[in-house]
């Protein structure tokens, strides 16, 4: 049985949040560092810089709640409680992978902790997440279906159609929209009207909505927890927009501020706001954490990262013959 991060830290939310963020950061950076070895042979979208939102959501959700995500799903999977070894093995295409090597970085799943899948087509897991909520409502469970999405995904018709239905039926859905200002290399300005905010759009569809500084992990956690309570009380779907920033290129392990779609200045501004160091400083200043606790978190993370890569390296490739094993049940 896996332990939820909040239990792991005996209810200390601050330590849980810091641990979650550091864990995501170090795993993502390790992928970036090792990507050029050519062993992780699949399109890989990293979340470095965006750890705050995922960590807050994963900490606020229980293992009982469900989550579904996108092409950029590592952080969501990990924060929800997903097994890092099986995620890395999946990126390596190994049989020990969380999707047995069939899916790669963009198709993660960990049913034990309610991570129901991530998919590679923009917007296409949104209706599926609403469907999970429909089932939850029918079964009269107190679970919430959490849908992770990007700022680009709200441009797809599937978003409107699914959000409309969720609002119509007052389904227990939590939309977590990470607005990182870009879809690949395209800034919001070429995709959405300048004066309209995504969370306003969501409100006008009929959902409760709010927006947060996605790099302020504690504020994110409190906001998400508050809305989760409302959803559990039956208020219907909530849509939360978080401003944040992806540090690395859209797909792949490199920094790409030099190629021209965004400026080094903009990057540095966001980097200064980054969620992890900022939170750690704040906790230290308020004596909410001790240096040995930080050292403990760091060493847990280092151990986890190295164990995950060892597991992946040691796991075998699936045999090509089993390729057709999962076409039909």
């Amino acid at each position, binding site marked *: 049985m896996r332990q939820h991060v909040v239990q792991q830290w005996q209810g200390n939310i601050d330590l849980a949040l810091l641990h979650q963020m550091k864990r995501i950061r170090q795993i993502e950076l390790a992928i970036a560092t090792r*990507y050029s070895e*050519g062993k992780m*042979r*699949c*399109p*890989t979208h990293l979340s470095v810089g965006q750890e705050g939102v995922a960590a807050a959501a994963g900490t606020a959700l229980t293992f009982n709640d469900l989550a579904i995500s996108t092409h950029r799903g590592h952080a969501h999977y990990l924060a929800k409680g997903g097994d890092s070894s099986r995620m890395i093995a999946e990126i390596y*295409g*190994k*049989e020990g*992978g969380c999707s047995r*090597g*069939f*899916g*790669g*970085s*963009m*198709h993660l799943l960990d049913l034990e902790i309610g991570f129901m899948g991530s*998919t*590679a*087509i*923009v*917007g296409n897991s949104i209706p599926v997440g609403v469907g999970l909520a429909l089932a939850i409502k029918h079964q009269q469970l107190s679970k919430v279906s959490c849908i992770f999405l990007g700022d*680009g*995904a709200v*441009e*797809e*018709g*599937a978003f409107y159609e699914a959000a409309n239905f969720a609002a119509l039926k007052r389904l227990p859905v939590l939309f977590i929209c990470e607005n990182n200002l870009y*879809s*690949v*290399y*395209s800034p919001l300005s*070429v*995709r*959405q009207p300048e004066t309209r905010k995504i969370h306003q759009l969501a409100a006008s569809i009929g959902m409760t909505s709010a927006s947060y500084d996605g790099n302020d992990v504690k504020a994110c956690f409190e906001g998400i927890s508050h809305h989760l309570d409302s959803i559990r009380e039956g208020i219907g779907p909530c849509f939360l927009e978080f401003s944040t920033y992806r540090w690395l290129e859209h*797909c*792949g392990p490199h920094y790409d501020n030099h*190629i*021209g*779609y965004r400026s080094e200045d903009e990057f540095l501004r966001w980097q200064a706001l980054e969620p992890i160091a900022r939170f750690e400083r704040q906790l230290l200043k308020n004596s909410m954490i001790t240096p040995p606790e930080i050292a403990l978190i760091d060493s847990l993370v280092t151990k986890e990262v190295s164990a995950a890569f060892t597991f992946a390296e040691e796991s*075998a*490739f*699936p*045999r*090509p013959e*089993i*390729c*057709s094993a999962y*076409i039909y049940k």
Partner: protein
Amino acid sequence: MTRIIKYTEAINEALHEAMAQDESVLLFGLGVDDPKRIFATTAQLVERFGSERVFDMPTAENAMTGIGIGASLLGFRPVMVHQRLDFFLLAMDQLVNNAAKWYFMFGGQKSVPITIRLVTGRGWGQGPTHSQNLHAWFAHIPGLKVVMPAFPADAKGMLLSAIFDDNPVIVIEHRWVHALEGEVVNGDWRIPLGKGRVVTSGDALTIVALSYMTIEALHAVEQLKQDGIYCELIDLRSIQPLDWELIFTSVKKTGRLLALDIAATSFSVASELVARCAIELFADLKCPPRKLALPDCPVPTSFGLTKGFYITAVDIVETVGAMLNCPVPGAERLRAAQTTPHDVPGEWFKGPF
């Protein structure tokens, strides 16, 4: 005048040519003006023709296809581009229910002259939703034209014809031919849609290939030649309309058909080739026609699982040997020469996309 250029440059040249020639040509799609410029195929277009004619779009494939259709009804010739065919699946409604039928269902009054460029992925773990080959779907819809050029010259010539055709045309570019170089004619040089091409002639057997399979087939045909087996290789280039006359003439001559495809085997273009040849040329056939295509299985991601998934020159050589009932030492030579990993087209491809 001709020059040796890359496939991606040939596409780029066709776009420049079309946009310079006709102000009604528009170009839009995710990333057409971004730093990568759709694998460089849309380079220098926004600079030259401006952001009114060359523009990025919201992630809204279905509506944007409909918007392209609407603009085409007032005389524009929109060219839309998607970095993976899979992303365009969201636009099936506008494509199939509107674009393909507008001319028909309003009794021939307005046609829809749009061009849709789709890039097919393969290798480096593109997996189940980034490497689907669904050209047979499109070809199955009356009212659509579908071309799949394998060489730079065809890419340029057919894209130009597609843009100036008065019907919806799907142009499918395989990611693995993007770096291919070849001789391309300068200026406005067009290849009619619906015409195949005999790449190498021979009388032992007819190999019909399309898109990237033509490249694998070329390697196979060269090896077979060294073993004294002369195959006729036809590159379909266009699958709707399909150049039946060219196929029938060749199969009548050789009496043997091997149809290659880059899609799942069942219900494929290769299936249609085999069926029509069996129906029309039954008496001319010296052996049962065969097809070589992918397993009827989604494409897995893992390096381990994609081993042997795709058809290579070796498979083609061996199948030809089996059909002719003769030894083919070329297969072994090809196997020995294989140095790049199976999931990349060559050293130039480093992933991840």
